[in-house]
């Protein structure tokens, strides 16, 4: 937990998206339907738009603030509420003030406009409560616990991302793929998002993964997918940790893109019970030679397998195979 040199709110601030409107050249407008965002997942999926030529998006927001605490404690004056959208990969930050919609100061609403040319992938939206504290204006006294994600291209408002799996011939593929001609699949972590390339030259593999055959094939196919996923998680973790930027004082930094997201997701399983920053420092120190990198490998494998749902899939595959065996015996 961070320690602040001034009093902050303990109650929580919530924010929700209430409307999403797109605008294009020649004043073309489109209002997205409410299935384009999810209050549960806290994601807006702009890929749900019918038109692809939009240039700006206006997001309507509503926020609630723990007013009673502000009144009873009396530390804060000049309270304002701001929405801030950031995306690390495009170094873009946009802020908009919300306005109070009732007398109590509990409900706030407003809009924030983003330009498509300023964003690439996923932007984060947070709402902050700002106030004057001890004579200092502009103090952040509370923020939303979890950011909303504005996904520029997703067709469904889901936080978790679908893995990009594509089938290509390794023999006829790029030079890089040709060097893996015997492998059933490889994980490519070089792009904006990690991707799995399935080798179409590996006979029967594609059918197996698509799980369209017999019960046995389906069970094995699922197992294979889980294993592939575990491979991906292991590969992306190593890519992310191997490519860290380090501050002058030796503090490693979380990357802004998916690499950062992967690290935040896996670190609690690799170094349990520590803050994200501490865990990152620990893993980085071990990798760069001080401490044991080898001892950490089982934990990385464990974290990857957990993300890929390997234990559960394996358990159910074993059960399925048993049942199939019993059915054949009977």
């Amino acid at each position: 937990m961070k320690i602040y040199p001034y009093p902050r709110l303990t109650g929580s601030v919530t924010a929700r998206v209430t409307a999403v409107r797109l605008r294009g050249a020649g004043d073309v407008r489109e209002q997205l339907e409410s299935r384009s965002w999810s209050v549960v997942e806290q994601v807006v999926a702009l890929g749900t738009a019918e038109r692809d030529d939009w240039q700006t998006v206006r997001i309507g927001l509503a926020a609630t603030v723990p007013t009673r605490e502000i009144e009873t404690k009396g530390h804060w004056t000049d309270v304002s509420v701001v929405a801030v959208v950031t995306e690390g990969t495009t170094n873009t930050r946009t802020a908009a003030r919300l306005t109070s919609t009732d007398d109590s100061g509990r409900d706030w609403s407003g809009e924030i406009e983003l330009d498509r040319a300023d964003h690439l992938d996923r932007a984060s939206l947070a709402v902050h409560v700002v106030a004057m504290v001890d004579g200092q204006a502009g103090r952040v006294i509370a923020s939303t616990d979890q950011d909303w994600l504005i996904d520029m291209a997703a067709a469904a408002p889901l936080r978790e991302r679908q893995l990009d799996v594509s089938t290509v011939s390794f023999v006829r593929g790029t030079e890089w793929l040709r060097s893996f001609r015997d492998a059933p699949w490889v994980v490519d972590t070089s792009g904006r998002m990690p991707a799995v390339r399935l080798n179409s030259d590996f006979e029967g593999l594609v059918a197996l993964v698509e799980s369209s055959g017999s019960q046995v094939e389906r069970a094995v196919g699922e197992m294979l997918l889980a294993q592939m996923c575990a491979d991906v998680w292991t590969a992306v973790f190593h890519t992310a940790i191997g490519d860290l930027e380090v501050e002058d004082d030796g503090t490693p930094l979380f990357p802004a893109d998916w690499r950062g997201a992967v690290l935040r997701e896996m670190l609690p399983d690799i170094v349990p019970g520590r803050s994200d920053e501490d865990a990152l420092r620990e893993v980085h120190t071990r990798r760069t030679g001080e401490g044991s990198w080898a001892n950490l490998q089982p934990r990385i494998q464990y974290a990857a397998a957990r993300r890929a749902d390997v234990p559960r899939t394996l358990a159910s595959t074993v059960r399925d195979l048993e049942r199939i065996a019993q059915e054949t015996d009977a």
Partner: protein
Amino acid sequence: MTSRPEYLPERLALLSDLQAAEFVTVGLLEGRDDVPSIALNKVAEPLPGDDARSRLHRVRDLIDHALVRFRGAPRPTVADAWLAPRLHETLRLTRREAAEKSFWTYLALGVAPDYVVWRHQSEAKGDTSHGRVARDRFFGAHYKQAFARLWWAAELFREGSDYRPVTVACSNQDMLNSALRLDVIDHRPTALALVRLLERGIVRTGRDVNALTSAVNAAAATLMYDVVAPDVERDGEPMRDWIATAESALPSPREVLPEGPEEQPAPEKSVEWLAGHFAELFADTEVRGRVSNAGD
């Protein structure tokens, strides 16, 4: 010394890290080898369409000029302040396009590996070893990669069409290196206020700049600069217009500064307030530095 690529296609292209890896050899990093340009362009993916902005020679001409102009300079770092605004004006990218790492990788390996080596090769130590270029100057984070860092510096430190703050920021390597990696400068009045402290000589040395930027960054965790020093609302229209005129744009002027998109300048009040605030923060760190030095 690594030389100008023998083969330069008409259009700029994209090159992924994986594809780039085989071309970034020790020989290249030590400035002994050239990049095999024909092989490289076989794997690179040319930019689609017929956009004037993706004409390779517009960039290469600029690089050629920079090399002639600064080759005799005491330090190659002086080229940054000249090249950053002109590279920005020549490429006319949106931030979305500039976030594409493979674009910068191609620029470094396919268009101007000779420039990257000349600008970033470290001094050789002793007679036996060669000076080296760090790999991340060819493909790396936006604040490391040889051309991405200049473009982003120009984008984040310019004030609308005015590139003057960019040249100030780029004239100080510590500002360029340490500020560019911080999220706080994504708030434009913050970036401009940092430049003012440099201009006014309040911060001078690399140590000053590093102390200042880390103090500003730490303060931003509790102070909402967007509220105390708001910027104008971002408007994408001037950028779109600017990009649309790329076709008819003249080559970037070599002697005077070019002009960027006609965006609104940041509110003077915001920039000045922050400049004052940062000067106070810096004075505090200086005092603390002196106290701890005295205790040594």
